């Protein structure tokens, strides 16, 4: 895999073979939990046994009837969508400010915007539930959205900032010389150029909010459990096959996201 095609057979050194075997094993380890869930989601018995005694689609058939899951899905989609919208609206202008205007303390402001990624979500979740509780915002859509804004904003800022800093600023200057005012430059030049970064950031923000469990657990476990919270509660009781079909739905969702992000901007650039 690592060597270019060669008409002549080359002796592959032992160490190279060993490396490939190691890499393959690591991929197995890395993907094992996802693969296993897909396998048991088709198993016919509820309680785990390996190999599964039979295969069926019963767990998938039962999904639409599970009203709690449907409600959870609804909560998750609504809150993730609103969160994404909000962080895009506040994150894109902030990124432009950070990338295009120099003011004293800009580095500190930029660090502040990215810092929520470093704070343990349990700690943030605790702070949120303490703050939102007295305001009556726990177990509401608003509460979940408020909880997810800070942890998704860094992704939007990071990807947008990256497209802004890699873009050639001289095309913005060219537009200004040709008569475009500030707003026209943004609308006609900057925004189209950074669009992939904004979209990728939005997608990642959406999926982070969609998958988030800890803050949602603290803030809205009893009233508005999101899908990950429901799976979390179910799995905490028993790790049987019933919840696998639902998990596969989430995995498929992630696969779609991965493909989308890869298309728009490249997965690797988006996540780091």
């Amino acid at each position, binding site marked *: 895999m690592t060597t270019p095609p060669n008409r002549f057979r080359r002796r592959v050194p032992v160490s190279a073979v060993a490396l490939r075997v190691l890499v393959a094993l690591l991929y197995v380890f890395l993907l094992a939990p996802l693969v296993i869930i897909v396998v048991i989601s088709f198993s016919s018995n509820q309680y785990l046994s390996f190999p599964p005694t039979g295969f069926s689609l019963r767990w998938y058939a039962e999904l639409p009837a599970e009203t709690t899951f449907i409600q959870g899905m609804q909560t998750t989609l609504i809150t993730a969508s609103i969160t994404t919208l909000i962080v895009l609206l506040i994150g894109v202008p902030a990124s432009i400010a950070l990338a295009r205007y120099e003011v004293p303390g800009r580095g500190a402001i930029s660090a502040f915007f990215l810092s929520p990624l470093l704070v343990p979500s349990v700690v943030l979740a605790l702070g949120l539930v303490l703050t939102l509780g007295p305001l009556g915002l726990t177990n509401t859509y608003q509460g979940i959205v408020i909880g997810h804004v800070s942890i998704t904003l860094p992704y939007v800022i990071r990807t947008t900032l990256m497209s802004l800093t890699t873009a050639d600023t001289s095309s913005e200057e060219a537009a200004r*010389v040709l*008569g475009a005012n500030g707003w026209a430059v943004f609308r006609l030049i900057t925004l189209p150029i950074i669009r992939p970064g904004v979209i990728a950031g939005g997608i990642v923000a959406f999926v982070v909010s969609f998958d988030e469990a800890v803050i949602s657990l603290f803030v809205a476990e009893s009233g508005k459990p999101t899908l990950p919270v429901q799976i979390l509660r179910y799995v905490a009781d028993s790790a049987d096959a019933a919840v696998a079909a639902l998990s596969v739905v989430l995995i498929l969702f992630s696969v779609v996201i991965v493909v989308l992000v890869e298309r728009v901007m490249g997965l690797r650039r988006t996540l780091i």
Partner: protein
Amino acid sequence: MSTPKLALVDLTKRYQPGLAPAVDHLNMEVEEGHLVALLGPSGCGKTTTLRMVAGLMDPTAGRIVVDGEDITSIPVHRRGMGMVFQSYALFPHMNVAANVAFGLRMRRLPKSERLERVRRALDMVQLGYLAERETKALSGGQQQRIALARALVVEPTLLLLDEPLSNLDAKLRESMRGEIRAIQQRTGATTLFVTHDQDEALDMADRIAVMNGGLIEQFGEPSEVYERPRTRFVAEFIGRANLLDATVVADRGPSGADERRYDVQVPGFGAVGAVGAPGLTGATRTMLVRPHRVQVHCDPGASGSPGTVESVSYTGDSVGYRVRVGDRAQLAEAPTDGRIAAPGDVVRLDWDPASAYLLPEEEER
């Protein structure tokens, strides 16, 4: 004299207080229709000057006057300039026609007129057939010409070119010089052209402003800047130069309009001839002799000052010599048809007195 198209009055840019200014009380006047090259090494302030004229940067002090009107406080998008960037700065998400049409769109021209003018601008750079192409797929030369068309289509007050040729390979650069010059002359656009390449400036410009340390060292026609540099810096920056210390001994009468021929004494060369401004008798001056004006005689019986060849570089068109005369090495460039000396050979150097020029006294900066 009529009002200049562009006048820079005491233009100054200081990036940080306490630091030396990037542009220091710069004064310059550009005539309508001229192509003026701002020539200098990197850091000399030429790009800063251009960006201030464009309005992309605010001067710390001074004024920019176009057609007699002070535009210093007019924001960039209302100045009506046309600019070609070093990176061309084509809008990556627009095709060629949309790029060229952008300035017209900003001027809210009706669509039909827009299309017509874009077509004419693209024809002017002979790229009409690329109108619907994406810009990313174009070669450097093509992008360059699209950028030029985009800047010219708005009939700019001034055309500003920021090192437009530096991203092209050597061959293309030379042909683009001629093309840009021809288009500039056809449109009559008054042009400021930033470059660090002296050949480019000599070849294309009506006037050259040689800049150094935020100041204009000399502003003049290419031949004037080359033949009659005002400072050592200009003499050394434009072309190659032998600079010798000369003591002026005697005035030998007029040479040309306002110069005189002198007898000078140069260490290592003895008594030689030179030209310079009037009234230099008794003074000490730096004398400039361009290497290709130095004659190299291999024949030991020839006239001239003897020197030892230190190195020889053969370029095909000519032979370059480093010749040690006294305690200093001098450069000479000879045609390749004669005998070519070898390192270690003793040769004799001399030159036509009219091609040795005594530089004016330099003011302290």
